[in-house]
């Protein structure tokens, strides 16, 4: 009894400290007035001078028609975006117009975050020239929930100086790619032939499609995964052999995403990396000199033809809870007009979404953009279903499949079979 009493203060302090420590956390809310004096626009990424200047010019154009409206642009980091959207949706305080990655449009449409703009889009003449694959990617159940803003494809960035030293040319098929990686790695000890983003899916799909495989196809009412096929297994084997057999990428690559991998390239630790044209700016930020020694080539297929690339990019959508949807659409038509789209794309290293602009000669003659201009001629999409986001983002089926082979936990046959089962389970769930 006595002992307990003496210890009571200590125990009490320990217990109350625990209470204080567990009861932390909080939340902040932004205020927004419900009138037409302000239009809130969410943009993804960190922005930058070029984008700010461009958006200022869009606002100036928009103000000719709506002089009383102030356009407020807020930048949301890409990885924060899902949380920010969810919080906005739960609290009812969202933007009026938002940018979003084109792989996410369907998912957010299914969550009723985005307004149906089918009528507005169909009545807009310039929209007819937008690349049809990109338009389709922003639809759910036949309704349009976003409008493509810019497009991007991935290609391979490589070190022109190291390739010259090793006496190799940019590869045009898989065998040449391995040979080039080995040659450069032998010449430059302490570097990797390829910065392999083992934990990313989009660059891998080029190899899958290049080998003639498919992610999943719809047969009647149900989805069938293509991972069980010999074509898919060939792609997984090539991708993972880069680490396990050819050793031109390190085991740590199993955990690298595209940013990790491209940083290895930018900081002079790898001879090749997969990246989109829009990522050039970030690589220059890591290392301004990289620009002098980089070149690009399209991701090769196994047989000498460039592999199909994933049609990435961004959409612009109207937030469903916005009270200013007509105003928001007026802003969108200025932002997305052919003239502005061309300006924006060329200032930031993207492609415009208009068919006639993409096929113009400007890009084919550019040292870096030429490879991307080739790649964008032949694009494919991930399965068009709102369930895809669960395969891609939550269960990361493809990334887990490749990582497990790189880490030596599964054979190619077992990993592809497991992934196919898991994918079909998700896509066909009720």
């Amino acid at each position, binding site marked *: *009894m006595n*002992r*307990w*009493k*003496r*210890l*009571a*203060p*200590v*125990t*009490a*302090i*320990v*217990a109350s*400290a*625990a*209470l204080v420590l567990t*009861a932390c956390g909080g939340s902040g809310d932004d205020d927004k007035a419900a009138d037409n004096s302000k239009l809130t626009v969410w943009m993804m990424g960190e922005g930058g001078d070029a984008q700010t200047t461009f958006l200022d010019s869009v606002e100036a154009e928009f103000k000719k028609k709506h002089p009383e409206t102030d356009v407020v642009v807020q930048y949301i980091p890409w990885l924060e975006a*899902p*949380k920010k959207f*969810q919080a906005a*949706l*739960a609290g*009812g305080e969202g933007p009026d117009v938002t940018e979003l990655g084109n792989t*996410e449009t369907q*998912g957010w449409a*299914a*969550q*009723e*975050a985005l307004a149906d703009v089918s009528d507005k889009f169909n009545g807009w003449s310039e929209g007819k020239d937008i690349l049809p694959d990109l338009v389709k990617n922003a639809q759910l159940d036949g309704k349009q929930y976003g409008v493509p803003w810019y497009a991007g494809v991935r290609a391979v960035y490589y070190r022109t100086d190291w390739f010259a030293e090793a006496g190799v040319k940019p590869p045009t098929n898989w065998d040449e790619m391995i040979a080039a990686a080995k040659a450069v790695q032998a010449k430059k000890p*302490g570097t*990797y032939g390829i910065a392999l983003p083992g*934990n990313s899916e989009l660059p891998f799909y080029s190899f899958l499609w290049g080998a003639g495989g498919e992610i999943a196809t719809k047969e009647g009412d149900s989805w069938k995964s293509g991972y069980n096929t010999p074509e898919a297994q060939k792609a997984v084997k090539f991708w993972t052999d880069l680490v396990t057999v050819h050793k031109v990428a*390190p*085991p*740590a*690559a*199993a*955990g690298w*995403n595209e940013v990790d991998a491209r940083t*290895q390239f930018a900081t002079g*630790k790898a001879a090749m990396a997969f990246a989109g044209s829009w990522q050039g700016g970030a690589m220059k930020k890591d290392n301004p000199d990289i620009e002098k020694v980089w070149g690009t080539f399209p991701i090769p297929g196994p047989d000498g033809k460039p592999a199909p690339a994933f049609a990435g990019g961004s959409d612009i959508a109207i937030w469903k809870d916005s009270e200013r949807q007509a105003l928001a659409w007026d802003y969108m038509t200025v932002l997305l007009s052919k003239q502005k789209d061309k300006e924006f794309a060329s200032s930031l290293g993207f492609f415009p979404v208009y068919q006639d602009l993409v096929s113009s000669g400007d890009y084919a003659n550019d040292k870096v953009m030429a490879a991307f201009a080739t790649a964008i001629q032949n694009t494919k999409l991930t399965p068009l279903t*709102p*369930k895809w*986001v*669960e395969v891609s*983002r*939550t*269960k*990361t089926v493809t*990334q*887990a499949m490749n990582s497990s082979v790189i*880490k030596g936990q599964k054979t190619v046959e077992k990993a592809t079979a497991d992934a196919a089962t898991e994918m079909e389970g998700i896509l066909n769930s009720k």
Partner: protein
Amino acid sequence: MSLLTKSPGEAAARETPARRRRRRVDHLPYLLLLPCLAIIAVLLLWPLGQVVWMSFHKLDSVRQLRGDREWPWVGLANYAQILGDPFFRTVLRNTVLFALANVALTMILGTLVGLLLNRLGKKMVTFVASCVMLAWATPALTGTIVWKWIFDDTSGLVTWLFNKLPDGLSTALFGRSDWTGYGWFNDPLLFFAILTLVVVWHSFPFIAVSVLAGLKSVPTELQEAARVDGAGPWKVFWKVTFPMLRPVFGILVVLSTIWDFKVFTQQFVLAGGTQDRTTFMLSIYSYAEAFSPPPKYGLGSAIAVILTVILLVVTALYVRMVLKQEDE
């Protein structure tokens, strides 16, 4: 409890006015507890009730949370789905083994440092205690990011150290001499080892300082007497110090168990998000199910409730043990 009320015999022995005063004071503790209780009710009990309520519904849209859509009642279906999923067994095994290892290591290291602090001189104790408390004061997020850099595959300190090992020795011990590009987080067991290191590093200072406080508040005569009688340090600790500090150890074990069962921040940062499903533990599993698109708030809530129930059971057992000892 025993701090504020005197034993009945003592109170009865007092004169009447004093007793009246005492009776009025008796209500004071409850009054003082009231604001705290109100805050706990609003911030803890209400959300807790809501999570339990949510776990009985099928919730897969944010609009349901806002009240724009109805909540379809599914009874125990969420629980059945989780408990029937073989993946849940992996997660539970990870959680329990991780918590056991971490509680044991934290308690051992913390107690040893506490005993050390008790032996040190005044200046040294201030120095060591401040160093140790720095680890405790470092926010989990910041500390873990630093640890992640230490284990970076290309430029991390650990990678550098292993590269400094003589090649022959390194090859003989680990089968490789070049550590650049080695995936420290690739193997689940290695991942858990690093996670344990980070969590123990974060939590042992609290144990150390609490043990020190306990040691300072018990009389030292008994230990001296035992030493005079010829008991070694091992015997003194187990026969004298430990029994005296049993209540402190009791509550520290409960707290450590609770903290180590629900480790989240450190795991989230080290694993780089919710991608590495083989190393999932209950709290990150709950978060991933609830908030990764497409959201499944009902399912996530059910996992959170299961975690809470496990923790309540563990805590109840310990509290019973401690109370029983008090009666002895």
